[in-house]
């Protein structure tokens, strides 16, 4: 288990999420793929926090936790994104009786 192997796993998770969010028609699938991408980013941040020396570590040893603080913020933003995203999905489903992104064309014209 090294920094590189951890980051490669995180990159694979991120790219699977990227493919899913670009190539699926169901809007819930897109939301789930975005969650996969968030997880890849979080994994990278925490791995970097463990292995890489941050600037100014001599003065403040607590700087090694900065990556974990960022991950906490990302988890919070992901929770907000899911709450709002599912609200939009429900509004869309109520209007068009469908969660297919190919049919979501109300904002066109």
């Amino acid at each position, binding site marked *: *288990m090294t*920094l*590189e*192997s*951890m*980051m490669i*796993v995180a*990159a694979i*998770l991120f*790219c*699977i*999420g*990227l*493919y*899913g969010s*670009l*190539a*699926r*028609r*169901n809007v*819930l*699938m897109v939301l*789930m793929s975005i*969650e*996969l991408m968030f*997880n890849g980013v*979080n*994994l990278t941040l*925490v791995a970097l926090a*463990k*292995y*890489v*020396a941050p600037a100014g*570590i001599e003065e403040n*040893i*607590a700087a*090694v*936790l*900065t990556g*974990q*603080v960022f*991950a906490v*913020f990302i*988890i919070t933003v*992901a*929770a*907000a*994104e*899911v709450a*709002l995203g*599912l*609200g*939009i*999905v*429900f*509004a869309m*489903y109520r209007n068009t009786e*469908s969660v*297919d992104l*190919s049919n979501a064309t109300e904002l066109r014209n």
Partner: protein
Amino acid sequence: MIFQDIVFWMLAVLSIGAALGVVLVKDLFRAALLLVVVFIAVAGFFVLLSAEFLAVVQVLIYAGAIAILIIFAIMLTRDVQHGNLPNRYHIPAATLAAVLLAVLIAVAVDTKWDLLGGQDQIKAQAVQTSAIRTLDSPGDLVSLEKAGFATEDERTAAQQAGLADLLIGDFVLPFEAVSLLLLAAVIGALALVRPR
């Protein structure tokens, strides 16, 4: 060390396999369940990286709250019979993802990371284990001395180093901003789904 490697590879296979399942499986409901498997595997990675607090948060928020919300949405929208169809951009999307993956792996392997040295690694380990609580019992003092915190100043610094100290100290402005964002998002979601 060898035990950690075994656990790492098991988690890597589990998380990547389940993530592939999420985007490729036909049934949306199964995809959501596989997403829970990915979340729990990532929580296992966090434990391996000595970020226990984040692992607990991951299980509570992702595997608990977010997964339940998504499963609720899948059941309420009743569009399950169409399944998980690809759109017409799925070949360019796969190419883009593969190219990005190659670039990311090349960057991760080629970059010369400024890694923590041996002594620093032990110190960082001590600080990361104090992430949840503040070290103050006599046993903690012994372990801090073993970790190489020689002077009194360094020891107090490590004792106070915790996620809570950073969140309420250095990062208090982003912390308040993100709480406001969460409040706004929840109110916005309520306004969106309110019956007219």
